[in-house]
């Protein structure tokens, strides 16, 4: 590997859709960067905001949450809870002085191996561009800048 910054990413994948989508990317031998470590939950609705912050506190540079498409949730509407929480998580991240672009929500079905590979590739590059999280090394000014500079990107990052 080259000297470029390799972001460390955590991906919470729901067991029914996105985890299987990631499996399909594998069985289809699609290639994507090795930066993201998947963690399986039954539903994306299980992902607690504390999980996100725990990941950042442990040194993650970005966190992906992936669940079933709206209407496809194995638990009827668990993913709607995720969708509801996600903008709040972004807001909180911003208030903490972190770039909201460090978390990403995606709907990946069990048939979308290609989408999973694409999302991980894109997200790796996006977080690479943001640079290391540097949780402990930022000055208050830097934190304020980080929150502000990327707040414009919040809207586009939330899937419709």
């Amino acid at each position: 590997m080259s000297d470029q910054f390799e972001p460390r990413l955590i991906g919470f994948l729901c067991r029914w859709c996105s985890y299987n989508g990631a499996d399909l990317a594998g069985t289809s031998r699609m290639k994507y960067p090795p930066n993201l470590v998947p963690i399986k939950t039954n539903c994306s609705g299980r992902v607690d905001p504390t999980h996100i912050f725990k990941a950042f506190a442990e040194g993650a540079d970005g966190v992906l949450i992936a669940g079933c498409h709206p209407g496809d949730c194995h638990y009827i509407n668990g993913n709607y809870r995720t969708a509801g929480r996600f903008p709040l998580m972004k807001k909180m991240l911003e208030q903490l002085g972190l770039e909201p672009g460090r978390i990403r929500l995606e709907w990946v079905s069990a048939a979308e191996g290609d989408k999973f590979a694409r999302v991980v590739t894109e997200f790796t590059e996006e977080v690479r561009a943001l640079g290391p999280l540097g949780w402990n090394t930022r000055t208050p000014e830097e934190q304020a800048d980080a929150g502000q500079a990327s707040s414009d990107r919040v809207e586009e990052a939330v899937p419709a």
Partner: protein
Amino acid sequence: MAQEKIGVYVCHCGTNIAGKVDVEEVTRWAAEQPNVAVARNYKYMCSDPGQDLIKQDIKEHGITRAVVAACSPTMHEPTFRKAAADGGLNPYLLQMANIREHCSWVTVDGEAATAKAKRILGAQIHRLPLNEPLDPIEVPVNPNVMVVGGGIAGIEAALKLAQAGKKVYLVERDPSIGGHMAMFDKTFPTLDCAACILTPKMSAAGKEPHIEMLAYSEVTEVEGYVGNFKVKVRKKARYVDIDTCTGCGLCTEACVVRKVPNEFDRGLSKRAAAYIPFPQAVPLRATIDPTRCLTLTGKKCKQPCLTACGPGAIDFDQKDEEIEVEVGAIIVATGFELWDPTPEKRYSYGKLDNVLSSLEFERISNASGPTGGHILCKNGEPPKAVAILHCVGSRDENYQEFCSRVCCMYSLKFAHLIKEHLPECEVYECYIDMRTYGKGYEEFYKRLMNEDVHFIRGRAAEVTDVGLSPTEEGRLVVKVEDTLLGITRRLPVDMVILSSGLAPRSDAKETAQTFGFGCSANGFYLERHPKLEPVSTVTDGIFIAGCCQYPKDIPDTVAQAGAAAAGALALVDNPTVNVEPTISYIDPEKCSGCHICVGLCPHAAIQYNEEKGVAEVITAACKGCGVCVAACASGVPQQRGYLDEQIFAEIEGALAV
């Protein structure tokens, strides 16, 4: 926490993992991790000797936790958890680290893959000391089965289950079972008459005491879980009492609305508003079309059907009825739709006369069809030449990329039938590749090559009525490049048959959502595993069969229906089934009774106990999504197997490397 002894097992999976990930290095690394007592690697962990390694270590090294770094848990978690249980370890003390699908297969660089494998494995090593022994929850199984869709797949599955003595609810949307197969004339390659082989099965299903036929009905809602589904079915009003009606057909003769396009003949004939879809219908009962009947559309009618009906079965006041049925397993066999060739404008379907879809031709060549089985053009004359165009809406990036598998063979069958009816007729087959992959199929193709059929290798470019010569004048002309001769040809013909591909039902996505499984990228229902579990879905207890899963011929459909029936039977033939214990619980000592979780639970599995002032999880209703866990501000609800501290530990482990 007491010192745990973890066994780590890194699988080579032949070269699937070891070809990319340095399994020796991962094993060496794992051996140094906290709590790890044994770390091994093996060529195929899922083999018997591989599984025995875990069992031996439980006995000889006293390991108290185990992690298998191998394929996806979807593939082999049950295998290894069973091995752990056989060795005397609670199965939920074994975790899998997916270093194949999520690592070796998707990573280009070997070193990067090895590093990622460590992170994936590290997450599980960190988590394991926090795993608790869990016991599967044993739930009773309702022995009844529902089959949705009354085509050949549904009929076959229902009959098999009924033979095994199971009560089957057979739900069919249309007034009669039979599906597409009932429309076919002959079946390839044996040329059995479709009706001759299907109607006995339809009739058997109608008479079978174990089958409760819910024709002209649709599933509206599915609740519950494996072994215990509650299904709501809307029985659409037929405006005919099904028990009183004898299927004599006098109402259809008396009905004054006579020009309704007959769906069964693909609109090539007309039916009355009071109708029986086809003479062999099961149940053989009349239905009154509420969109066309004068009385039901609020217009004036002398209601001659009422007078004609001897037993007085007609009831204009009948309403849709919703019933709830409890079953242990469900087989979804909702079939396909023929791809509608209208968007392929260059073939002029729906614009020029005598350009037919394949199902329309099935009806025309069928003795019970609109022409009595005589192959005739719209003007009543037999065609002198017919072109059959393959791959319409199939193998076409503009429409459907996939091969529909059956079109080559039915096209060959059409050519044979035309030659049989009209030996002087010229028949052209315009194909891309001839795909005759089934038993007896290649032989059938060979036979057709000796029946004076013209095979032209090339996808047709256009169907036009603009003639350029006296032989083309007033006829249809097919423009096609013969790629074997390297020339463009114009074929003057009198009839064009478009061999359309098979498409998913237009409401397949909604149906899949109703039953709780997904669709593949091509729109057909997604099976749990394409090879090893082709009739299972992600939802335990719900199976799929037939063309709703992917286009297939009748033999494959029947085989799959049998497989789905066997899958359902293997479930409902047991008094109980184990479900995953990964459900939520609420500590009443900590709950403040704020109600947040009560309203969020998708399954209404949390109720508020007024007396104690706390929320309580109804164990039997909880499905383990964990939404309540994430929602509680105090973190009171917890989900077994996915405790916050377990997820935290995974995060730590994944980022510690």
